[in-house]
C-alpha cells in the first residue's frame, strides 16, 4: 500500500516536471515556429538600407555592397533607403546615385528621409520611385560647393605642366559649374513629373522642410519609415512581407572642438581617415546641413 502510494507520487512529480519542461521548451520553440509559419506565408522581403552621415567613399562602398546583396537575393522584392545625411563628396554621391539607379531598375525603391536628405544624399535618392519625408526633414540643396583653387606648390616640387595639381580659379569655376549642371539635370530628369519650381529655382540650392519639399515636388509624401516600407511592399505587389534591415558599420573616432563663426563647434574625427563631421545638435530652424569642405554637392547650377 505504502509502496503504491510512493510510486504514484513519483509518477505525479515526473509528470509535473515533464509538463514544466514542455512549457519551457514550447515557449522557446513557439516564436521560432510562429516566425517559420509567418515566413512561409511571406511573399518576399523589403530591405531597409541606411544612408546616414557624410557621403564618403567607404560609406558608399558599404551601401553598394548592401544593394548588390539585395539585387542578388531572390526573396528581396523592394528596397527602402533610410536617409539621414547632409551630403558629401561629389564622386561618392554620384556612385550612390548610380547604385540606387541600378537597383531601381530591378525592383521598387522608396526613400525615407529622417532628418536631412540634402545635397549629395538627395542626389543619391533621386532614382527612388517615391520619396517620403518627415515634417521636420530638410531636403534639397541641389548644387555644388568647392574650394576656388589649390594651395600653391613650392618650387622644390617638379611638375610637368602649369595645371598639374594646380588648377586655376577659373578652371575650378568651370568644373564646379559643370558638376552643378549635371546635378540639376538629374533632378529635372527624375523629378520632372512632380516639380513645380523652375530649373533656376532649383539651382538656388535651397534646402526645404518636408511639407514644402512635397509641395514643390522634391518629395512625394509626408510619412515615416514604416509608411515607406509599406509603400515599397505595395509597389512590389506584396501583402505579406519580411523586413531585412541593413545598418552601416560603426566607426570609432574622437571629438574635438573648434571655433566657427565665433562659436565653439564640436566635430567628430573618424579613425578611418575620413573628413571630420560636426556633432549634431537639436534641430534648429534654418540650420545649415553639413557640407564637405572639398568639392561636394551643395549649391547651385
Amino acid at each position, binding site marked *: 500500500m505504502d509502496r503504491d502510494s510512493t510510486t504514484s507520487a513519483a509518477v505525479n512529480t515526473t509528470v509535473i516536471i515533464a509538463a514544466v519542461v514542455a512549457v519551457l521548451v514550447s515557449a522557446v520553440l513557439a516564436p521560432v515556429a510562429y516566425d517559420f509559419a509567418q515566413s512561409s506565408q511571406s511573399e518576399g522581403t523589403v530591405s531597409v538600407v541606411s544612408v546616414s552621415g557624410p557621403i564618403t567613399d567607404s560609406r558608399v562602398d558599404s551601401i553598394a555592397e548592401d544593394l548588390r546583396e539585395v539585387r542578388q537575393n531572390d526573396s528581396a522584392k523592394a528596397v527602402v533607403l533610410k536617409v539621414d545625411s547632409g551630403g558629401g563628396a561629389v564622386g561618392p554621391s*554620384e556612385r550612390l*546615385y*548610380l547604385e540606387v*539607379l*541600378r537597383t531601381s*531598375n530591378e525592383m521598387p525603391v522608396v526613400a525615407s528621409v529622417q532628418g536631412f536628405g540634402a545635397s549629395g544624399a538627395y542626389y543619391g535618392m533621386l532614382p527612388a520611385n517615391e520619396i517620403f519625408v518627415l515634417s521636420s526633414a530638410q531636403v534639397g540643396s541641389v548644387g555644388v560647393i568647392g574650394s576656388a583653387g589649390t594651395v600653391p606648390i613650392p618650387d622644390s616640387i617638379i611638375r610637368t605642366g602649369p595645371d598639374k595639381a594646380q588648377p*586655376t*580659379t*577659373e578652371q575650378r*569655376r*568651370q*568644373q*564646379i*559649374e*559643370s*558638376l552643378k*549642371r*549635371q546635378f540639376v*539635370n*538629374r533632378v529635372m*530628369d527624375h523629378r520632372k513629373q512632380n516639380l513645380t519650381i523652375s530649373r*533656376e529655382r532649383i*539651382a*538656388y540650392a535651397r534646402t526645404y522642410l518636408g511639407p514644402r519639399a512635397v509641395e514643390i515636388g522634391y518629395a512625394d509624401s509626408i510619412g515615416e519609415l514604416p509608411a515607406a516600407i509599406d509603400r515599397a511592399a505595395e509597389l512590389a505587389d506584396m501583402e505579406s512581407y519580411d523586413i531585412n534591415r541593413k545598418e552601416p558599420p560603426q566607426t570609432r573616432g574622437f571629438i*574635438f572642438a*573648434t*571655433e*566657427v*563663426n565665433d562659436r565653439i*563647434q564640436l*566635430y567628430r574625427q573618424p579613425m578611418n581617415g575620413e573628413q*571630420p563631421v560636426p556633432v549634431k545638435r537639436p534641430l534648429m530652424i534654418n540650420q545649415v546641413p553639413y557640407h564637405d*569642405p572639398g568639392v561636394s554637392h551643395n549649391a*547651385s547650377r
Partner: protein
Amino acid sequence: MQAGEFKRPLQVFVGIVIIVLIGAVALPFVTGTASPAADNLASQQTDQSSVRVADYANRSAETGTIELDQTPQSKTILIDRAHGNQLDDEKLSTMVNALVKAGHEVQIASQSQARGSAWNESLRGADALVVVNPTKTYTQAQLAGVREFANGGGRVLLLADPSSVSTGGIFGFATREQSTQSTALTSALGVSAQSGYLFNMNEYENNFKGIYASGVSGPLADGIDRVVLRDAVSVQSASGQTALRTGEDTRRESTRRQDAFSVAVTTRNVAFIGDSDFLAPQSVYTADNEVLVGNTLSFLITGKKRPNVPSEPEPESERGAPVPSGPSGPSTPSGETITPLPR
C-alpha cells in the same frame, strides 16, 4: 568498439562528400556561368553637351590689349595702400604696368603717408588717386583733403568689392567677415555702394556671381559692349552718370531684388566701380574687360588738377592724441615710387 566498425560509416561519409563536391564543380558547367551584363548607367545618365562649360555658347573671348589715352605730359597716380586696402599685388600690377608703360608715374601710399599732414602732402604731389577696398577709416582731415583734391580737378578712382569672408583657425573652420570702410570716403565724393553682392542665375560667366554688364555712357563706357565682373556690388551717384549697367535679371543677394543695377558711375572727377576683380590677370582679357581697364586708367590721367591742391590741412587729433602743428609727418613721401619706363 572495434576499429573495423568505423570503416563502414567512414566510407559513407567520404562518399557523400565526394559526390557533393563533384556536383558543385559540375553544376556551373551544366547551368552556365555567364556574368550578367552590367548596364553603363553613368554614360546613359550623362548628357555631354549640357555639362560642357568651357565651350559654352556665351563664353567670352579672351583677346585684346589695354590701351590708354595719350597725354601731353606724364601724370602721377597715387595708389592708397595706407588704409588696410584689400588690393592684391596681381590687380595692382595690372594698373601699375599699364600706367608705367604709358609713361606715367605711380606712387604707392604707405601708412606713414597717411599720418598727419603727410596725406594731403602726398595728394598735392599727385594728379590722380586710386582707393581700393579700404578697411581702416579716414580721418576728417583726410576726407576733406580728398574732397578738395577732387574739387580741384584731381581724378579719383574708387573700387569696392562686397564684404569678403576668409577662413582661419586651427583646423581652418573659423571664418571672419571683412567689410570695407569706404562709406565715409564715397559719401564725401557723392557716390555710394549697396551692401550684398550681385548675381544672375540665367546668364553668367562660369559662376552665378560672374555677371555681365554693358556700357551705358561716359568716359568709362567708351567701346564697351560687355564686361565680366566676378564679384560686384551696385553703386550709385546722385549727380553723376551710369557707366556700366547689368542685365535686367540680375539680383542683389541681400534683398533678392531683381533689377538692372549700375555697377560703375562717374561724376566730373570721380569714377566708382563696384568691383576690383576685373583687374585680376585672369579676368583682364575676358570679354571687353581690357577696354574697361584702359578707359579707367585713361580717366585717371586725363584730369586737369590745379596746383597746390589740396591745401595745407588744419591740425587734427587722431584717436584722441594731440598732433603737433606743422609738418609733423614725413616731409617727403616715404611710400614706393614706380617711375615710368624709358620711352
